[in-house]
């Protein structure tokens, strides 16, 4: 008697919808990922403001200073007192001079903790002024609560 050979077919699920979905998820996360986290710091909780909208374009020459609740400054990942800021500011000023640009092109972005004493913010501004920086930006978080 002749035995009929059984058809041994591999049963495979249809992967196409899963791959489609996965690619869509990747596209979603890629679009929303925010690489500007580098200039933020977890120790700083910014004050809220409903008028704090992101600027239309990038700033010309931003220098970001983080002011902690205790009144110290974080610059380049290093925590220093306000009085020890001069060498850093001089270095930034030198970079601008080498590039042949005036100091007024630079914007000092102050990311102050919401509970920091205002006097400390003013001391920080004064310290920057003594290095001839004159344009400041007080950073706040957009208030989306209401």
């Amino acid at each position, binding site marked *: 008697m002749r035995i009929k050979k059984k058809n041994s077919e591999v049963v495979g699920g249809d992967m196409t919808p899963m791959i489609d979905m996965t690619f869509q998820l990747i596209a979603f996360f890629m679009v929303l990922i925010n690489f500007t986290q580098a200039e933020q710091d977890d120790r700083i909780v910014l004050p809220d*403001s409903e*008028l704090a909208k992101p600027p239309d374009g990038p700033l010309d020459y931003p220098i970001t200073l983080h002011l902690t609740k205790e009144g110290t400054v974080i610059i380049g990942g290093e925590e220093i007192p306000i009085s020890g800021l001069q060498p850093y500011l001089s270095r930034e000023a030198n970079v601008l001079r080498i590039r042949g640009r005036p100091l007024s092109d630079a914007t000092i972005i102050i990311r102050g903790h919401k*509970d920091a*004493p*205002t006097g400390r913010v003013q001391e920080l501004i004064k310290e920057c002024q003594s290095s001839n920086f004159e344009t400041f*930006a007080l950073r*706040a978080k957009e208030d989306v609560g209401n």
Partner: protein
Amino acid sequence: MKVRNLSGNKSERVEIPMTPMIDIVFQLLVFFIMTFQIVAQEGDFNIRMPMAAMSEGPPPIDKLPPMVVRMQADSQGNLAQISLNQRPLGVSMQLLHDEIRQVIGDDRGPGSLQETAEVELDCDYHLRYEHVIEVITAVSGYLDGSGNIVRLVENIKFAPPRPAPSQ
């Protein structure tokens, strides 16, 4: 003449190995999920304070003197009193905003009061910084019905700092 099938199979399907691609795709997905953070947008309030302005003499006659917003703090650093040109307004930001809005009016454009007006913030040393941002928000503008920012005072500066309270 009989033509032989060289391959020996009738209809062989060319299978592309999908497993490495799916592995990589899932690794990418995990990377993006792990690094994803929902962060609120940030914005800036611009303040222009050249050193020379601190020591300059009386302002020009044709220029309005700055509106001085005095902010007093209690011992905890909370806002205790706001005064606009020495007129006490309590701690109401809305009252301050209404006063500024009344002064500035609806006139916009070059040479308008909105463009030339200036606010000077005179704050106690230990006042918490968030109150300063609240005041700056109140004087610098408001959101209209469609969510657009209507600017009021754009020239904001700090008065010379007050001395730190003795411990």
